[in-house]
């Protein structure tokens, strides 16, 4: 099919609708508002639901209800709004509900600013809500992936009965690029566990409470067995010129694109540098990283935060190789010059 030149945020909505998303509940916030706006425009035209909720708390709980009733449903927000959604996300993880949460990240803490940061890594990947749970976190770096990974998120959410996050920085959300949209998904998997208010489903219960310690422990162990399956099957990453590299840069979202440009520049000077871009931030490509460490490659992590993913990289390689870090925050984005200098610095470091 032909490509459409489109904003990442809008590609999320079109992808979601193509994936069979029946409802969107959300509250406006920059730089995610285009998602709500596009959802408000398109969903009603197809007889589906768009509702601007009273707050992010309201929105995530409407998602909780709609997911309980068995449809594909989503919400989107940006960092401060995601903080508010964390309670609901924890409930959805506990109650094993399929839903998609999109986070177009901005600067923090507090009100911070609306410029792109990646400082939601910990609140999404490490679980910003209470309790033992994990979220699948997908990190697109272009408009095409905003569509594709949103669609993939709905599939994963249904397959594993779990909330799935699509997390992109403000630039990936705001940027426009050509996108090729796939055909609409038909024949979604049935959800016999839902509580839809129908004779087929009225015996069902959606809950996250388990009063007895043994019951709750069993439930959590069940969740973690599921997470182990996800870790075994769903890791995604992309590599660029890694094979012969002495130094491998690691970054996600827009940083991976900036790194790509930087690597092209130093490659032109004959320096052996590559890129590993985690697409799933959880499950994390830790096995691949461990292998890179086995091969003795130096690693340089770059993020638009004070160092969050770098912790996971260090855990994966168990300090066997040097892991450098460079971060910019406040909405600042590493420039080509900074990337170049950092690569040179870490290439030479011993």
């Amino acid at each position, binding site marked *: 099919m*032909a490509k459409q030149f489109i904003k990442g945020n809008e590609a999320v909505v079109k992808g979601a609708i193509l994936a069979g998303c029946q409802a969107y509940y959300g509250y406006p916030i920059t730089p995610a508002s285009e998602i709500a706006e596009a959802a408000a425009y398109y969903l009603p035209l197809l007889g589906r639901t768009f509702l601007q909720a*009273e707050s992010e708390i309201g929105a995530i709980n409407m998602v909780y*209800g709609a997911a309980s009733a068995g449809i594909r449903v989503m919400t989107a927000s940006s960092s401060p709004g995601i903080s508010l959604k964390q309670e609901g996300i924890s409930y959805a993880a506990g109650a094993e509900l399929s839903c998609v949460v999109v986070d177009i990240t901005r600067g923090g803490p507090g009100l911070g600013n609306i*410029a792109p940061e990646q400082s939601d890594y910990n609140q999404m990947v490490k679980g910003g809500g209470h309790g033992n749970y994990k979220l699948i976190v997908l990190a697109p770096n272009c408009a095409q992936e905003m569509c594709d990974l949103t669609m993939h998120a709905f599939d994963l959410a249904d397959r594993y009965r779990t909330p799935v996050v699509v997390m992109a920085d403000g630039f990936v959300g705001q940027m*426009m690029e050509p996108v090729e949209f796939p055909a609409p998904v038909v024949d979604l998997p049935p959800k016999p566990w839902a509580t839809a208010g129908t004779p087929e489903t009225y015996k*069902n219960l*959606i809950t996250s*409470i388990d009063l007895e310690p043994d019951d709750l422990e069993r439930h959590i162990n069940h969740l973690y067995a599921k997470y182990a399956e996800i870790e075994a099957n769903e890791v995604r990453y992309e590599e660029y010129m890694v094979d012969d590299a002495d130094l491998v840069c690691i970054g996600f979202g827009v940083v991976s*694109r900036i790194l790509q440009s930087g690597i092209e520049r130093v490659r032109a000077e004959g320096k052996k540098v590559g890129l590993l871009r985690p697409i799933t931030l959880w499950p994390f490509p830790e096995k691949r990283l461990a292998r890179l460490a086995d091969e003795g490659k130096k690693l340089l992590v770059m993020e638009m935060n004070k160092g969050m993913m770098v912790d996971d990289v260090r855990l994966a390689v168990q300090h066997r190789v040097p892991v450098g870090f460079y971060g910019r925050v406040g909405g600042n984005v590493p420039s*080509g010059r900074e990337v170049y200098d950092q690569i040179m610095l870490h290439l030479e470091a011993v």
Partner: protein
Amino acid sequence: MAETIFRKAKSFYDVYERKAGANKDVTHYCPGCGHGILHKLIAEAMDDFDLKEHTVLISPVGCSVFAYYYFDCGNIQAAHGRAPAVATGVKRTNPDSVVISYQGDGDLAGIGGNEILQAANRGERISVFFVNNAIYGMTGGQMAPTTLLGMRTTTSPHGRSIGNEGYPLHMCELISTLEAPVYVERVSLTDAKHIMQARRAVRKALKAQMEGKGFTFVEALSACPTNWKVPTREANRWIVEMMEPVFPIKVFKDEIETREVVPREKKTYTPHEIVETLDLPTGDETVSFVRPPNALKDPEIKVAGFGGQGVLLLGLALAQAGMRAGYHVTWLPSYGPEMRGGTANCHVRIAEGRIGSPLVHESDVLIAFNGPSLDKFASLVKPGGLILYDSSLIDRTIERTDVKALGLPFTELADKELGNGRASNFVAMGAFIVASRGVFDEHVVKSILPLVIKRKNLIELNERAVAAGMRIAREALGS
């Protein structure tokens, strides 16, 4: 509460299998608790209207968190205070279902104050059953928003005071001031007469929901002997003497008869209709274009000016034209407050291969529409790069000698020759085509104009603007 549900409603389970512990035939509620009575009234109404297979009951956080032990219907347990939002999601998924939000006073009037108010105000077609026992039962007797003045609780040990905690919150009174709700009543679960009244209210609310009338709300004054520290036999009297004067039992609003039902239509859409509705392109839309060998290669472009000068639009047009001509392209705007300040800029990349960073720090091309933008970005143009600027608005000479600077009267030309100064951005587009030695041509631009210019009657004007821009650029460059 075994005695209140002696003849068990069919909408209750026979045996409470979900309940922990040994006693699976009695509820977990204390003797004399109002929850058991209200449960029974709801279950009986569900029996009589044959509802259980169509009902989803949302249980709150509070003593009734375990309502799903008892009700033989679809059950969802929600976060503290959020049941009305959860109910919204369920009801809108299946409008034919009957959705009940069952909540206590801490849940509904405290932590969930916004959720209930907004669901009521939207007129969600759900029924809310609200147990007001003036205290937090589950957590052991702390103050609730509905706790009476002077009443001692574990967190108002000196008695609730106006100065510190303020007055009790009256939910029926509040909700009945909203336009959307169709039915709001406060009842009291004390003696047989009042329980019969409560029974009628519950049935009325559910019936109204079945008929699709709108939001219904029944508040039940209800005993919590345990946390009131009042003997069970005195609890009803406590409701009558202490609560009813503050929370009058009455119908606050009843518009069930007169409220119109909005009919719903359910239509399914074919994949083709979905693609069409989403405005997705269907045919291949690239135009044939061969890049001249000496055209600017992989230009990184910055476009900057005042908001309203069509800066972002020009960037979009550059990127779209690049895409049509077969290049990889990206467009990145400045967004948010930066724009509110009155200036706007965007980054455009047009390249033969996959594009790494969409950011343009140092540009090959700067197109500037006002002085501040030129001042800000001219120094970031790469040596050998190109600066196009609107000489009708910018009275500057470019100091740099290592770049090619071309000042052309974009606005003046658009104004005088085309009769519309706002076409200045496409005059600049024409200049870019020439100055870039044909990264793409005017035919490519013409093909994308309908995509970027929303007002059809302005397309022709902008076509002429491109031509005019090309002309003056050629004149200036002597090419």
